[in-house]
């Protein structure tokens, strides 16, 4: 059995990425090999943050005024993905159900993908990077497409998918809860199916697709929420967004 382990890098019978040389696994002393890197890292980040603190002032507007709603009114950037969702579905879904589901599903990853094979290998196999890239592009197209449709689909006086459905006699719950849930499950599910068919993906490779779906959605929604939402949270170009927002200075 020991021969299995000694097999040199690159001679696998499967297509796992064998980029790690056995020499690289030889133990070295933490002092100084790791401690020095940690020290340099800590000093570098301290320096960069200090420079930033010297040259860029933390935002500070006028005193809180419950009467004066800024337009647009935004949460900090890491929640803007959720705030973006808020524009497209029932608030209970965007504000509570989706974030809870995301945390639970993230936590569940190691309990769904349990094989140890591929631990410690960047992108696992030769298919890893193509799957991740494909998943990110697939997700981005869906996200951007749905956001555009929801912004511009004419529905009587308003715009959007939910108003359009309601105009055609569908109940509110169907338009604001059922349809968004259907999209949010269909995108990852279809991605899983495509990756499985096209690449004969195993469990780890399917997980790479799922995480890439999560990551790409987070990044796309955060960017749109941060840089492309202006007055009244309407889609706008970054340079058209009032800064500081009305009512904040």
């Amino acid at each position: 059995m020991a021969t299995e382990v000694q097999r040199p890098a690159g001679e696998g019978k499967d297509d796992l990425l064998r980029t790690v040389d056995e020499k690289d696994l030889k133990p070295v002393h933490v002092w100084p090999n790791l401690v020095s890197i940690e020290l340099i890292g800590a000093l570098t980040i301290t320096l960069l943050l200090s420079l930033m603190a010297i040259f860029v002032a933390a935002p500070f507007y006028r005193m809180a005024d419950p009467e004066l709603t800024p337009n647009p009114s935004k949460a900090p950037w890491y929640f803007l993905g959720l705030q973006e969702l808020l524009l497209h579905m029932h608030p209970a879904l965007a504000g509570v159900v989706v974030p809870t589901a995301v945390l639970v599903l993230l936590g569940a990853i190691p309990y769904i993908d349990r094989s140890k094979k591929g631990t410690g290998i960047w992108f696992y196999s030769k298919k890893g990077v193509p799957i991740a890239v494909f998943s990110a592009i697939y997700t981005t197209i869906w996200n951007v497409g749905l956001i555009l449709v929801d912004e511009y689909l004419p529905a009587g006086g308003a715009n959007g998918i939910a108003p359009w459905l309601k105009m055609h006699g569908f109940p509110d719950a169907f338009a604001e809860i059922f349809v968004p849930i259907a999209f949010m499950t269909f995108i990852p599910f279809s991605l899983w199916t495509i990756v499985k068919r096209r690449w004969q993906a195993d469990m780890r490779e399917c997980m790479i697709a799922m995480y890439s779906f999560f990551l790409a959605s987070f990044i796309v929604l955060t960017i749109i929420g941060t840089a492309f939402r202006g007055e009244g949270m309407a889609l706008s170009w970054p340079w058209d967004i009032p800064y500081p927002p009305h009512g904040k200075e």
Partner: protein
Amino acid sequence: MSRLWRYITSSRLWKSIYRNPYPRDKRSRAMVILNSLALHLHPVRVPKRATRITYTWGLGGLATWCFVLLTLTGVFLMWYYIPTTQDAYWTIVQLQTEVTFGAFLRNLHRWAAHAMVLAVLAHMTRVFYTGAYKPPRDFNWVIGVALLLVTCLLSFSGYLLPWDQLAYWAIAVGMEMGGATPFIGKQVRMALLGGFEIGQQTLIRWYTLHVIFLPLACILLMATHFWRVRKDGNISTPVYEDDDEETLRAVEARRQQLAE
């Protein structure tokens, strides 16, 4: 100079603090790790690969360091800040205009908070794409998810404290979301606000969470996280086979062999 140095390093006081000489040989390099509080979180030796920047990118370490910076600058901010709706805003104004390094340390606190959220997200992404969440590290990944949540909450709870327009309305958006919780929305809103609207009760609640509860929770989780990294066999190394017991033993034997 060197005599003075020798005098200092051979004094009782120095030796009572640093149990071993500057580490230059195998033995003292091991002892320095084992004898120091901060360093003993590490193993004495690690596979060379674990020290490669391109494996971990040092991101967990950067998140930890951000937390340290935030604690230090945060204590400083607490010296001046008063958590009441009349004073909060003005103590920040005063801090920025009258206190030496006040503006600098406030800025540093703010930027380090953003950096920590970024570092944690990036760290999670590196752990994911290197498959480092797989057993036996599965539960440590779960602790990590809890840390992600606590990090975001820490950052968000700090957002309200300056009591300016940005703070107030960001929290208003947050409350709108929390208040939409199915079935218990009203109760959740009440608990977060400490009343019917954002006011003194809200500020004191978020302040307490921000300076006591969440940091303690974060420290506890980080301690568990680091401890688990050690107990789970340190930073992950490549596994090419889906290991049965026998292979695992062979890997372990091989590692021992390499270590000699």
